[in-house]
């Protein structure tokens, strides 16, 4: 069939009525002509008509034969089946709703997880021709993966033949942008001038960097910054803005989808790499072959394969290793398509997503089993209909097709609703904020890939759960169905496929629910963990004076003055300055040993925090011995306060006060001991902590994440927040204020993991519970319809409604009991796996493992009771008469 006739046929399909009329007219005219001829040859009118009809082969038969030729008989009957199916479903709204909802939950869960896969695994960078842009890494003795040093980058750039361009950039450049409103802290990248050419990126406005602009103060803005901060100003090119106190000229605006080559980072501006000294002052080893700081991406020359590039890089690595044995020994290179998962985290992420995929796929399978069960129950009721249709001449394949059409229609409806669910779910997933200081783009959305996946999955689902009932409907029933006998009923068998499916479902959902319960209980107890410092009533906001070319001395003066000004604000009880709050996932740490003692092995690693005088007070950390910081200066000996754990470790049997410890090339005299605090994560065992004097540390070991001013408040925090912010602005209006948060907010971030686990499993647990309840309901419903006659007879013989109800509910509870017997040990086993993310409760938490089964049993009893009640309302006379 060629294309043209396909089109004609398709058109015919939709102009069916008109064409039918036309054909009818034509055949009538044919008959008329023939009758005229016959009359002329002397026949009687009746004879003439009869002869003409005979010759034509019957009017209706001719119409049929032409019709088959004309359209797609297959499509027409499909449409007919669809209409029939739609009518059936409309007539059973409850059944339809339950099935569609069940499938929507299963399919929605799958497309949500697939949206994550699509975003993080199937994603390619938003650059021109992503397939030939490679992200390069160095390896050390095959150990993956590190960035490049500047000299190594230039060596690769100048010596490799496989690439048409090689670009390097510093990936995480903090800066504060000012002009046009409040100063704002942004994350950008400092790139070689060929960056946008190698990326083959079409900018939304303006241009990338020219090759002579290596150190020019020019900037390409990210699309979002351009929109939010500059109101999408179309004339922004050539305008000047202030970046960390230096004037920069805007030369371009990135396209909306481009947020850097990396998969996760949310880069908001790009500047030429020659400006890095200016934007990251006090860091001077950029030229060292030892200092790996530059990220490299390279564009493959057309026609060069990955294998060729790889072997060339291997040769280069050996050459560099010989030329620079001190720094490059064991050097190797590795690359993957730019924008892929970072090689270091790849396996973990794939494992995580794979596990989720398996879980949601199981949920979908359960849903399918469920719906197949419901369908089987329906099929029992429809045997009579099917038998009648076969008797009227429908073929078995027609019946099969009819049932499959019905199941597919249901699954597509389920898929549509599932898409809505996954829209909602991806939205809420995207709202989770990772507790890291840099800005990440982790938005998950329903894209075209996800839609295609959902569609195919729905189709497959429909065929899957439709096949068994369809098979049964078309083949399994004998002609006795016509006589009103039920071929599917095989009373007396307990371990039917249906019952087995329901038991499996209930056990699975018990496992899911138990894990959910554990996660929720752990979330509760995590919020009650004693963290060792004040959990509320503290405000924090950060500034980074280093980005504004403050000298260390000026930084210290500034911070001290800021602390003084904040402390006298109304509503502020005390204030302090530090580099970072505890419980931020890990900040800085160093090995610490006691001076003049036998070094401990392994060296105890202590968390390092800078603290101003008043820090302990403000955070509510209790000083057990010694004194707080006072007015230390860089000239006086370095002092530190340690927590109990570190003190006990280094000085088990003596007074630590006055002793000296060293770490990171600095000696500290211990002046105080505090209680223990949680420093990295909530769930951790207590770690050694060492507080250093802020004033003594800024010069030698500056913070790369800025400094945080803390205010313990005894009043309403919004007004205090505003006044702290204006205190900063009064001192230096160009400083960007960032990470503004209350302690409650900060701790919510620390609860990220338990919250994520709690939410995910709460969702899956509820879905599992719903499915199990629906499954049990379906089976009990079916049982009731099978036993309708028996129940009718029982009631006719005098059984009471309550007795009948008990009969049905008992069968449901039997199934539930078996399921619980299987599910409980399984749940206990699975719970052990979650040990590492549970806070403050045991994996065999008694509350969870007693209350969840009871809860589940209650739901199951309810699911069995509804059909039981229906059964007991049956009028025995009606049942007996219908037999």
């Amino acid at each position, binding site marked *: 069939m060629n294309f*043209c006739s396909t089109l004609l046929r398709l058109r015919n399909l939709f102009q069916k009525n008109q064409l039918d009329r036309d054909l009818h007219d*034509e*055949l009538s*005219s*044919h008959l008329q*002509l023939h009758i005229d001829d016959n009359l002329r040859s002397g026949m009687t009118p009746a004879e003439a008509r009869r002869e003409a009809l005979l010759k034509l*082969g019957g009017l209706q038969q001719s119409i049929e*034969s032409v019709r088959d*030729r004309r359209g797609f008989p297959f499509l027409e009957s499909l449409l007919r089946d669809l209409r029939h199916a739609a009518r059936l479903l409309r007539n059973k709204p409850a059944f339809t709703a339950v099935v569609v909802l069940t499938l929507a939950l299963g399919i929605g869960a799958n497309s949500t997880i697939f949206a994550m896969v699509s975003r993080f695994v199937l994603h390619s960078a938003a650059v021109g021709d992503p397939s030939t842009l490679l992200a390069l890494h160095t390896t050390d003795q095959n150990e993956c993966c590190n960035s490049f040093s500047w000299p190594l980058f230039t060596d690769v750039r100048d010596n490799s033949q496989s690439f048409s361009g090689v670009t390097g950039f510093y990936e995480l450049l903090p800066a504060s942008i000012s002009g046009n409103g409040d100063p704002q802290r942004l994350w950008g990248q400092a790139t070689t001038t060929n960056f946008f050419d190698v990326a083959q990126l079409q900018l939304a406005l303006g241009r990338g960097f020219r090759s002579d602009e290596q150190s020019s103060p020019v900037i390409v803005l990210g699309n979002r910054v351009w929109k939010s901060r500059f109101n999408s100003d179309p004339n922004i090119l050539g305008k000047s803005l202030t970046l960390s106190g230096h004037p920069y000229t805007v030369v371009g605006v990135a396209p909306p989808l481009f947020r850097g080559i990396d998969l996760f980072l949310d880069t908001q501006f790009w500047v030429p790499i020659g400006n890095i000294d200016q934007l990251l002052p006090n860091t001077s080893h950029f030229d060292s072959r030892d200092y790996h700081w530059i990220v490299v991406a390279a564009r493959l020359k057309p026609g060069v394969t990955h294998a060729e590039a790889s072997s060339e890089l291997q040769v280069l690595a050996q050459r560099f290793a010989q030329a620079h044995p001190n720094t490059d020994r064991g050097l190797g290179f590795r690359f993957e398509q730019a924008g892929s998962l970072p090689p270091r985290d790849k396996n973990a992420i794939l494992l995580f997503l794979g596990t989720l995929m398996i879980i949601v796929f199981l949920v979908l399978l359960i849903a399918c089993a469920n719906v197949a069960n419901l369908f089987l129950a329906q099929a029992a009721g429809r045997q009579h209909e099917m038998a009648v249709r076969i008797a009227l001449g429908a073929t078995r394949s027609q019946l099969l097709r009819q049932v499959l059409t019905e199941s597919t229609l249901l699954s597509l409806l389920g898929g549509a609703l599932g898409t809505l669910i996954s829209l909602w779910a991806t939205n809420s997933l995207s709202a989770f904020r990772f507790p890291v200081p840099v800005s990440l783009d982790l938005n998950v959305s329903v894209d075209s890939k996800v839609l295609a996946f959902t569609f195919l999955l729905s189709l497959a689902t429909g065929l899957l759960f439709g096949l068994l009932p369809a098979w049964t409907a078309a083949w399994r029933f004998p002609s006795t169905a016509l006589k009103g006998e039920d071929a599917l009923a095989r009373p007396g068998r307990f371990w039917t496929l249906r019952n087995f499916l329901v038991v499996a479902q209930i056990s699975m959902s018990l496992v899911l629910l138990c894990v959910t319960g554990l996660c929720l209980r752990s979330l509760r107890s995590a919020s009650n963990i004693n963290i060792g410092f004040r959990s509320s009533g503290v405000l924090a906001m950060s500034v980074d004076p280093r980005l504004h070319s403050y000298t260390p001395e000026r930084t210290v003066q500034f911070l001290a003055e800021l602390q003084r000004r904040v402390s006298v604000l109304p509503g502020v009880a005390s204030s302090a300055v530090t580099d970072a709050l505890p419980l931020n996932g890990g900040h800085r740490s160093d090995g610490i040993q006691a001076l003049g003692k036998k070094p401990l092995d392994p060296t105890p690693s202590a968390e390092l925090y800078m603290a101003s005088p008043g820090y302990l007070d403000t955070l509510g950390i209790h000083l057990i011995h010694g004194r707080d910081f006072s007015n230390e200066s860089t000239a006086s000996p370095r002092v530190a306060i340690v927590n109990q754990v570190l003190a006990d470790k280094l000085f088990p049997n003596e007074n630590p006060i006055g002793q000296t410890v060293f770490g990171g090339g600095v000696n500290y005299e211990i002046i105080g001991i505090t209680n223990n605090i949680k420093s990295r994560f909530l769930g951790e065992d207590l770690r050694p902590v060492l507080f250093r004097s802020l004033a003594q540390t800024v010069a030698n070991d500056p913070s790369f994440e800025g400094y945080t001013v803390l205010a313990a408040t005894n009043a309403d925090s919004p007004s205090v927040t505003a006044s702290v912010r204006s205190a900063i602005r009064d001192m230096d209006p160009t400083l960007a204020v960032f990470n503004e948060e209350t302690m409650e907010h900060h701790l919510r971030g620390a609860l990220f993991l338990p919250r994520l686990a709690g939410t995910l499993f709460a969702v899956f647990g509820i879905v599992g519970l719903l499915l199990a309840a629906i499954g049990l309901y379906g089976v009990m419903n079916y049982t009731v319809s099978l036993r309708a006659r028996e129940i009718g007879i029982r009631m006719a013989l005098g059984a009471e409604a309550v007795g009948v109800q008990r009969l049905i509910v008992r069968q449901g509870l039997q199934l539930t009991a078996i399921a619980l017997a299987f599910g409980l040990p399984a749940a206990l086993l699975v719970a052990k796996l979650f040990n590492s993310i549970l806070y403050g409760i045991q994996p065999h938490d008694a509350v969870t493992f007693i209350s969840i089964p009871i809860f589940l049993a209650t739901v199951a009893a309810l699911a069995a009771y509804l059909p039981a009640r229906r059964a007991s309302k049956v009028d025995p006379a009606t049942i007996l008469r219908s037999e």
Partner: protein
Amino acid sequence: MADSKLDLLQGTLDLMVLQTLSTLGPLHGYGIARRIEQVSGNEVLLNQGTIYASLVRLQQRGWIFAEWGTSDNNRKAKFYSITKRGRKQLTEDAAYWQRLSIVMSRVLSISDSEEGAKS
């Protein structure tokens, strides 16, 4: 329509219809059917209804087109005419059939004479 015998018959009927339209000009379905019956000396037992399936098929391929008109004795009827592409197809098909019929008759006569030789 998987039966090969049926396919051959259909092809034959299509060719007859094309040839009829090519020689007689625009004609309605009944006229075509009558003409084929006459020409074949009533040897083809034609179920006239099948003509219309053939006409639809030829229309879909763009070899003929149809329009409503009036017959000689003033009856409304649908008239079919052959198109340029139809004529081209007819030439090709006719040549094919002629070759086939020559070959067929040759083959049949060989087998006849061989059988004769044997007996």
